[in-house]
C-alpha cells in the first residue's frame, strides 16, 4: 500500500510539473496581457521542432537556449504585426486570430518536417536513471524537467512580484494610459511579454519533445488540458496554475492506481441488485478508466462553484 501511495505521489508530482511547464507561458500571457493565446500549443510544437533541429546539429543544450529565443522572436513579430492590429477589435478578434495561427503553424511544420514523428532524443548527459525506488527507475531527464519547471515558477514569481519590470507590466494591463504617461512604451511592454510567454511555451516544447512524441499533430494532442490548468488555478494567477498543475497531476495519477468501481462500493449492500440494474452502464467502470476525464470534471465543478478559480483575482 505504502509503495503504491509513494510511487503515485512521485508520478503525480512529476506529471503535475510537466503540466505547469507547459502551462506557464499561457498563464503569463493571459495574466499580463489579458489575451487567451490559443496558439500556445502551436508555439510549444515549434519549440519542440526547433529544439530537434538544433539538437541534431549542435546538441540539446544549445537547443534549449536558441530554440526558445527564436520562437520568442517569432512571437514578438506576431504580436507586433498581427495581434496588435487585431487588439483594437476586442477579445473575440484576438481569440480568432490566435486560433487561426495554430493552423498556420501546424501546416508550416507539416511542410517542413512531414507528418511522421521525428527522432528527437533525450540528451546523452541525462539519459540514465537518477534513482530507483521499489524497483521503479526514475530517469534523470524527468528530474531535469521538474527542476526547470520549479525554476521557471520561482523566477516568474520574483520578476512579477518583486521587480520594477513586473510592476510596470502589471500596471500596463490595468492602466495603460497612465503607464504610457509615465514614459513607458506600453506597446513594447506587451510585445516583450508576448515574446516571453511564447518563449516559455518553446522551452516546454524543447523539454517535452524528447519525453513525449515530437510530431506535427502534437499541438492538437496536447489539447485542452492546459486550459483546465489555467482555469482551475484561476485565470491569470501563476501560483494558482502551479497548484492546479500539481492537483491535476496527483488526482489523475491516484485515480489510475485505483481499481475501485461502483460494484466494489455497493456490491455487498442490500440494494445491490436494484442499483446494478439502474446503473448497468457504469456499474463495472473503474476509477482508473475515467481518470483522464477527472480534470475536466474538476473544471466543470470549479466553474460552477468558484468561477474565478482557486487563486484567481478576477472573474474573466
Amino acid at each position: 500500500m505504502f509503495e503504491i501511495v509513494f510511487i503515485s505521489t512521485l508520478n503525480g508530482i512529476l506529471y503535475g510539473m510537466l503540466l505547469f511547464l507547459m502551462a506557464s507561458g499561457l498563464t503569463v500571457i493571459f495574466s499580463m496581457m489579458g489575451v487567451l493565446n490559443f496558439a500556445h500549443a502551436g508555439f510549444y510544437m515549434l519549440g519542440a521542432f526547433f529544439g530537434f533541429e538544433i539538437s541534431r546539429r549542435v546538441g540539446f543544450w544549445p537547443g534549449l537556449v536558441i530554440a526558445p529565443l527564436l520562437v520568442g522572436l517569432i512571437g514578438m513579430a506576431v504580436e507586433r504585426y498581427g495581434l496588435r492590429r487585431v487588439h483594437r477589435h476586442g477579445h473575440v478578434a484576438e481569440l480568432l486570430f490566435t486560433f487561426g495561427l495554430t493552423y498556420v503553424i501546424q501546416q508550416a511544420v507539416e511542410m517542413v518536417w512531414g507528418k511522421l514523428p521525428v527522432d528527437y532524443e533525450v540528451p546523452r548527459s541525462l539519459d540514465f536513471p537518477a534513482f530507483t525506488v521499489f524497483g521503479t527507475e526514475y530517469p534523470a531527464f524527468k528530474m531535469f524537467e521538474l527542476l526547470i519547471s520549479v525554476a521557471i515558477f520561482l523566477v516568474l514569481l520574483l520578476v512579477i512580484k518583486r521587480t520594477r519590470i513586473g510592476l510596470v507590466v502589471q500596471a500596463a494591463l490595468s492602466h495603460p494610459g497612465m503607464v504610457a504617461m509615465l514614459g513607458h512604451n506600453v506597446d513594447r511592454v506587451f510585445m516583450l511579454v508576448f515574446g516571453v510567454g511564447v518563449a516559455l511555451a518553446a522551452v516546454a516544447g524543447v523539454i517535452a519533445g524528447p519525453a513525449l512524441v515530437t510530431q506535427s499533430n502534437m499541438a492538437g494532442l496536447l489539447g485542452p488540458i492546459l486550459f483546465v490548468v489555467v482555469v482551475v488555478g484561476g485565470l491569470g494567477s501563476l501560483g494558482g496554475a502551479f497548484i492546479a498543475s500539481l492537483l491535476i497531476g496527483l488526482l489523475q495519477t491516484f485515480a489510475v492506481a485505483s481499481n475501485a468501481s461502483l460494484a466494489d462500493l455497493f456490491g455487498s449492500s442490500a440494494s445491490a441488485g436494484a442499483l446494478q440494474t439502474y446503473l448497468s452502464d457504469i456499474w463495472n467502470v473503474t476509477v482508473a478508466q475515467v481518470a483522464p476525464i477527472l480534470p475536466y470534471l474538476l473544471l466543470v465543478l470549479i466553474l460552477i462553484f468558484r468561477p474565478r478559480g482557486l487563486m484567481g483575482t478576477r472573474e474573466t
Partner: protein
Amino acid sequence: MTKKLALAAAALSILGLSAMPAAAEGTLKLAYVDPLSGGGASIGQIGLNQLRFIAERINAKGGVNGEKLEVVPFDNEVNPQKSLVQVQKAIDQGIRIIIQGNGSSVAVAIEDFLRKYNERNPDKNVIHLNYAAIDPILTNEKCSYWHFAWDAAVNIKLEALTNYLKGQKDLKKVYLIDQDYSFGHSVADTAVKMLKEKRPDVQIVGNEFHPLVKVTDFSPYVAKIKASGADTVITGNWGQDLALLIKAAADAGLKVKWYTFYAGGAGGPTAVKQAGLADQVFQITEGINNIDYKPAQETIRAYMEAYPKEPVYYPRLFNLTGMLFEAIEEAKSDDPAKFAPKLEGMKYKTFSSGDEGFMRADDHQFFQPLYISTLEPVDTKTEFDEENTGWGWKEVAQVPVKDTITETTCKMKRPK
C-alpha cells in the same frame, strides 16, 4: 470543362435521368477515403502515397485493361459522417471503387451506406475495399457483399498470435492494456477468451482500459503493470497511445515482452528505438520489410526512394490493389458487379513473401500468412530499417494461413 460537366449533370438529374459518370474515357478512378488532415493525417497520408506510387507504376506499364489509373483523395478526418459525405461525392464524380482503411467506425458506416446504395442502384454498383479496419463485426454480423477486407481482423490476428504464444514456455503472467473503445475492447475480450482456451495455465493479471488519445503520462499505468508482476503485455494501442506507453515503460525500467498490433505503425519504431527496447517489442502483421523475397524488396527499395521522408507502407495495400487489378482484368470490366465475383475466392501470392493467401467467399475476408516480428538494430541479415531509425523488423515466426482461419457468422446476401 468541369463546370460544363457539372451543369450537364445537374440538367440531366433535373430531367430525372441519372447523372453521367464524369470519368473521361480510358481512366479508372479509385477514391481514397481516409484521414488527410487532423490527428490521423500521418497514417492516411502513407496510404495515399502508396496508392499513387502503385498507380504510377501500373500506368507506366500501360494501365489496367488499357485504362490509366487515377487516385482521387477524399479527406474524411476519421469521421463516419464526413466519410459518407465524401463517399457520396466520389459516387457523384462517377467513381465506383472506394478504398478506405482507418477506423472501424468509419468502415462500418461506409459498409452500411453502400449496402443500401447498391440495393437502390442495382445497375450502378459501388464497391468498398477495406485495407485496415479490423473490427470483426465488418466480416461477421454486418458483412456485406460489397465489402472486402484485406487486413486480418482482430480475432484472426489474435488466433494467430495465441497459436504462437501456445509454444512460449516462459509466458506466465499476461497484462492487457487497451484503448477504451470498441476496438480495444474486442482485442481484450478475444485475447482473454483465446488465452484461456489455449493456455489455461497462464494468469491474466490485469485488463486495463484507458481513454483514447487523451493520456499524456503513462507512468501510473506502467506502475500498475509493474506491481502486477506481468512478464508479457498484449496491447492493441496505436499511435501516440502506444508510443507514450512504451516510452514510459522504458523510463521506469519495466522489463516485459510487448505483443502489439501496431508497433510498426507511423511513429511506433521511432518510439521503440528511443526507448531502447531491442528485441522486446513484437508485432503481428501481414508482412515486414526484412523477409528474403526479391520481388518485394525491389518494390520496397523503389518506394523508399520515392518517399524518403515517409518510408512506411502497408503490404496489404499492395495485396488489395494487386487482386483488384487481377479481378478487373479477368472480368474485362471495371464494373464492380462484374469483377466482384472474381475477387470472391481468389487465390493470390501475397506481396511480402509470395506465399499464397485467399479471399474467403463466405465473408470477404482475406486470409494470408501472418508474421510475428521484433524490432532491433539492423545487422547483416536485415537490410531495411524503419523510419530512418537504424532499427528494423526481424521475423520471429511465420504463422501459416491454416493457423489463422477463424469461423464466421456471416450470412452473405448476394445480389440476384
